[in-house]
């Protein structure tokens, strides 16, 4: 499923860019992230707990940052799997200055599998968007 949109960060692009490469900031901002541990250059192992209404599930997965072109764009891939299925998402984030702030345009794919794919279909887009929004809200607050 394609997913795209834009969010704002109240920092100039170079600062926003740096923030989004900082594992500690990411760990704080990714909704449900319980741990983020570096496994290689720009690669991390993540444990997260996703909760959406009655749904809840623990996921273990990887975060990878690539195609870095500071401070204007990079690619982010996140994948996780747990007992209720798996989630994979990836896309390019483009940063544009807007006065003293940054507009982050994202464009990517989300793929889910397992039980969540079967029952959560109508919720995935909304859930993904709301997670992205929370992610940026938390980043903005850091």
């Amino acid at each position, binding site marked *: 499923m394609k997913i795209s949109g834009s969010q704002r960060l109240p920092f100039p692009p170079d600062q926003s860019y740096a923030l989004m490469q900082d594992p500690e900031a990411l760990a704080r901002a990714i909704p449900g992230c319980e741990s983020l541990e570096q496994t290689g250059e720009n690669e991390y192992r993540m444990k997260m707990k996703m909760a959406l209404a009655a749904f809840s599930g623990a996921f273990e997965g990887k975060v990878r940052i690539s195609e870095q072109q500071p401070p204007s764009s990079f690619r982010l891939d996140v994948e996780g799997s747990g007992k209720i*299925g*798996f989630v994979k998402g990836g896309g390019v984030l483009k940063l544009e200055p807007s006065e003293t702030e940054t507009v982050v345009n994202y464009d990517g794919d989300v*793929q889910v599998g397992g039980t969540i*794919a*079967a029952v959560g279909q109508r919720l995935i887009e909304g859930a993904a968007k709301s997670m992205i929004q929370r992610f940026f809200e938390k980043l903005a607050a850091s």
Partner: protein
Amino acid sequence: MATTITRPKTLIGKAIRRREDPRLITGTATYVEDIKMPGMHYAVVVRSPHAAAKIRSIDTSKAAARPGVVAIFTGQDVSKVGPVPCGASLPGLRVPNHTILATDRVYYAGHPVAVVVATDRYIAADAADDVEVDWEVLKAVADPLKALEPGAPAVHPQWPDNKAFDFHQEHGDIDKAFAEADVIVKQRILSQRLIPTPMETRGVVAEWRAADRALNLYSSTQIPHLLRSMVAQMLGLEENRLRVVAPEVGGGFGCKLNVYAEEALMGFVAMKINKPVKWIETRRENYLTTIHGRGHVDDYELSAKRDGTITGIKLRIIQDLGAYHQLLTPAIPTLSVLMMPGLYKTQNIFADIVGVFTNCVPTDAYRGAGRPEATHGIERMVDILAAELKMDPAEIRLKNFVQPNEFPFPTATGLIYDSGDYAAPLKKALDIAEYEKLRREQSESRKQGRLMGIGMSAYGEICAFGPSPATPAGGWESATVKIEPSGKVTVLTGTSPHGQGEETTFAQIAADELGVDIDDVLVVHGDTALVQYGIGTFGSRATAVGGTAVYFALQDLKAKIKKFGAMLLNSDDVTLANGQCIDNKTGASKSVQEIAAASYRAMQLPPNTEPGMVSTHFWEPPNFTFPFGAHLVVTEVDRDTGAVKVVRYIAVDDCGNILNPLIVTGQVHGGVAQGIGQALYEQAVYDEAGQLITGELMDYAVPKAHMLPWIESDHTVTPTPVNPLGVKGVGEAGTIGCSPAVVNSVVDALSPLGVKHIDMPMTPEKIWKLIRSAQ
């Protein structure tokens, strides 16, 4: 020839209520899930979440450590169990090795990779969650058209073109027909993937009696005997040491006309753990791993003369097979080819099938199995041709029908249509609808800007499967009729009904033939230890083939009754009527019950006659039967939302003689419900990665009662000469006749906007977009 065989004082033809219903509607029937045994264990199958992946390793240690877990088996453990069988054979067919558990690779989401056995199902489910599989995820392909593109991911790496087979059939001179045609119409028509959705999912209980070296297998199946033969072979067990029982079966619609991995797997588990084991499929598993139906992309071309005479039909089928061949998977589209001329005369046909592997669960027989696709295709094409020629859709059908004096009629596809008066049901449907008046109403409503449609289909189908040479495992059926010493009658049928009501109709046949009370007749089925070998219930065959076997067993028995009766009455001239054997000279009589008792007591025996009152008959049908009918549907489309309302549904079916009109009407209603499901609501949707996203009843729209119209069901009666009962079969008719009539009606409603074709399901959004793009 619309005639009915009538008999005096007969139960045949009476709307007798189904004798199986009290236990079904009071919740007291025994399904597989209701079976409990001392020491029973429970199995949960671990399945792949991925549509295509390599298995790097499977770690079962954490699961095995859970208290209550008794055993875990993976693909390596079951390597000696034979593959899941494919019963269909086609020239050059590529058959993947379908092991009961995946070994190094999975091919569809839901593919079984391990089985966890525990003392209760909750522990088993918890432990199944603990099984860790290290996957290497591969690219999958779920769309058959994409699978045929160069460079598509290979479902089976050894066959990179994803083709399982090419099939070709032609007859007559198709090139001449098209070269000389006044008009040629073409259309791509889709018959989408559907999920059969029986109320009862699959389930298996396996019990190994080690001391007897005997395996009892209870399974929700339509084919207990065939299942026994094939599972015995898979397990390497002597067939006579395997007993298969199909207890109450809560619907099948073809999806239980199969042999599934779990059936052999539970047998294997029971033999390994030496304890009974139960596995009940969840609805989620049912959607992921029980066969789906349809899955056609059909390219049609029709050639015709200006007067509407159809001169040739070309059909190219792309069949989405899924990842494997289940029992009949590759054979299903060949039935579409057989049925492609419909009820029409043309002798020029050309058909190609490409069977395509996809990373999806296999398709196979689902109510109608190949014939709904063919009927949908030809009946859409005839409407498209009528529109092109500006002819009335009824008129063009009447013009092309095989005529009553042409039977038996050899079709271009090699069938011999048995009997028919194809115009009769169509004319009856038009009469019931008051067709002329309806068309006037339609033109009035169009002036008001309303979108009212009138659509029809004239369908034929292949039923009573079938002559043995034309079926993969024999097409006969068996029956044993016993009159017990007390005079009670037991009918053992090799068919295995699961909703069709044969406990009622077969009892009607027996009660009529013997002249006994219907309550004295018990119909037994579905247990290979009780019932002689039989084929099963599918392809609208139970009554036409199985009922005929019962009929012939009864004739043998009647002859024997008369022999004993003559002996007891000291007569050489007796008649058997109304349950009495009567001496034609003296009028003295003995009842069937008295005669049965005497046959067992055997104080005296007629010459060359054995004691007892039992007869078994295996009946081989000389031909299929070919029921037909016409459905007429009035719809109204909501211009604002695109929603379709079925305003009237008229079904006139000709299934030959009718044994029980209540059951026939019930079959038509259920069939129409599933046809409307396909026309308006249902579609199995896989995403690009092969995830089934209509994976639950929350998203897969099986129609409910309030979504269905009142069905005006009527009949014409053209008996078949193929069997002495004159019955043709009706189990699939409603489904086959329905979907083209509904689509034709909606296309007719939208025709003022220039709409010529709509693919199923006709969802409101799809219709709304058509309306909007026309504006």
